[in-house]
């Protein structure tokens, strides 16, 4: 592995030179030395070193802590402090800049080496972690559902972008706070009610709810820990408005189709019963005289039955089409018993 490039910020040139010697002896390269904060920021930007060794006490407008803060913020380069004396107040300030290590003067070579190696390792790990978090975040945001992760104390661990928009809150503002605080408008009332059951019984809860003109399928899943105890709860909002509208459309069409069929049935009823009545009447009065008329009425019934059969065929065509198109996608259309379906002869 290539040895790291180290930048040194030290206002005392003799000390700076000493550090440079030590660093180079340890096998690292020195990408530059600066004596003031302003100078340091400029050179660091140019040289983009792997690590910065920072003296806390610097002459000039900026002290080391301020420079370190800016380096951390602007370039995300790890900073290790070098200081002769560390009082508590100074260390407290330094802590805020998330330093990767402290080296107290006088230092020995071995200590410097291990601190630099540790800082680099820590930085690499942090980068990898940040990368993974970005990936997970991208994945979570790629899902159109609104998702929220809670711990068993009902505190928000994470939410995705869709959920942040739903709640009208910034994700960072919500994280770590009790979920009840996101319920100012009462839209989470039902969720909160079910939450206790999920925590207590560790079972998934799922329900549908209308919210601001859209329909959601809301699910609360328990996520078990390694020891199978409850670790987290996922709350998921799945938008089913389109599905609902499709269903409503289908049922509306279904109802009008049924009403049409019912009317047709009644008409057919009337049309079949009339010739039946005529036949019965002719037979009752004198069937020998009325034979031709009886045959005429039978023919009428035959025509009607043929129409019924044609209607069945048309319905079968529609049914086959619906089954073919929706059977795998949605279960709104279910296959008939099919015991007398002869495979749709057309």
């Amino acid at each position, binding site marked *: 592995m290539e040895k790291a490039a180290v930048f040194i910020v030290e206002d005392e040139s003799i000390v700076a030179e000493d550090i440079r010697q030590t660093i180079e002896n340890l096998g690292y390269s020195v990408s530059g030395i600066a004596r003031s904060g302003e100078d340091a920021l400029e050179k660091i930007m140019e040289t983009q070193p792997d690590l910065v060794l920072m003296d806390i006490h610097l002459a000039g407008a900026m002290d080391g802590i301020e420079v370190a803060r800016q380096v951390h913020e602007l370039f995300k380069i790890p900073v290790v402090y070098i200081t002769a004396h560390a009082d508590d107040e100074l260390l407290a300030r330094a802590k805020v800049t998330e330093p990767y290590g402290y080296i107290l003067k006088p230092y020995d070579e071995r200590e410097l080496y291990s601190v630099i190696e540790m800082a680099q390792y820590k930085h690499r790990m942090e980068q990898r972690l940040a990368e993974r978090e970005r990936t997970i975040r991208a994945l979570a945001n790629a899902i159109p559902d609104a998702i929220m992760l809670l711990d068993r104390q009902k505190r928000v661990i994470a939410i995705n972008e869709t959920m942040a928009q739903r709640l009208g809150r910034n994700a960072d503002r919500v994280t770590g706070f009790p979920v009840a605080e996101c319920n100012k408008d009462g839209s989470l009332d039902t969720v909160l009610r079910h939450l206790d059951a999920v925590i207590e019984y560790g079972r998934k809860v799922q329900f549908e709810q209308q919210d601001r003109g859209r329909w959601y399928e809301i699910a609360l899943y328990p996520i078990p820990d390694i020891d199978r105890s409850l670790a987290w709860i996922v709350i998921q909002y799945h938008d089913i408005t389109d599905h609902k509208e499709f269903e409503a459309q289908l049922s509306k069409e279904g109802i009008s189709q049924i009403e049409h069929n019912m009317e047709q049935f009644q008409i057919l009823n*009337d049309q079949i019963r009339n010739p039946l009545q005529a036949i019965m009447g002719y037979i009752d009065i004198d069937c020998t005289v009325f034979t031709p008329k009886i045959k005429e009425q039978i023919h009428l019934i035959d025509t009607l039955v043929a129409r019924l059969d044609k209607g069945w065929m048309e319905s079968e065509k529609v049914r086959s089409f619906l089954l073919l198109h929706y059977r795998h996608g949605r279960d709104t259309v279910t296959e008939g018993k099919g015991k007398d379906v002869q495979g749709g002869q057309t």
Partner: protein
Amino acid sequence: MHTLMLVDDNPAIREIFSIFLEKTGFQVHVVPGGKECLDFLKTTVPDLILLDIMMEPMDGWETLCAIRNSPATRSIPVMMLTGKEPTPFELQQYGKWIEDYVMKPVDFKTLAGSLTGVIESHRNMHMEVKRLKTEGFDPAVIDEYCNLRRTIVVSKKLMHRFRDTWRVNDDGIRMQEEHLRQLRVTLGLPVSGQDMNRQVERNKPSDDDGMDEQSKYWRGNNVYHNNRSGN
């Protein structure tokens, strides 16, 4: 001799009913539609009108409304003789205005007795109404009483038909019957069960054992639904 009017748009039906009913001893007028029926009623008042439902352009229910809305024809009894089952909605609306309804195809032998029964029952009711009016009872109450008596007849048939589909029970009918009983008390009429069921009883053929298989079939499936729920 009773006078019947048959309103039906089917020429075969008109033909067989006029032959049969005349043979049975009725005087029969047949007309092909609602409009012709109303025209005819201007000159002749029959003892009973047999009315088909599905007719063009004026259907049976429209014709019934016109008959009931005219003072001259208001009290003529009407029986629906239909190929299509009346819907619950239709019966709810018009049930109080019809004596009964009969589904085609109907067996002539049982129909003849049924028609005479309806005419006589209506005549009895008519006389009862007349008497009650002279006795000074509220005409609105009398009207309600007559309507309810008719309604119960078709309600029982309707309930029987939908018993399995809707899993209905007899509560609605029992409430109607209780209401009828109260009206009878109000009007000073006897309230024995026998008397109240007269409307239903009339549909029973006088000679049960003499019925042939065919008649029993039609009795069981069509014309006499109300017998079962009535007893």
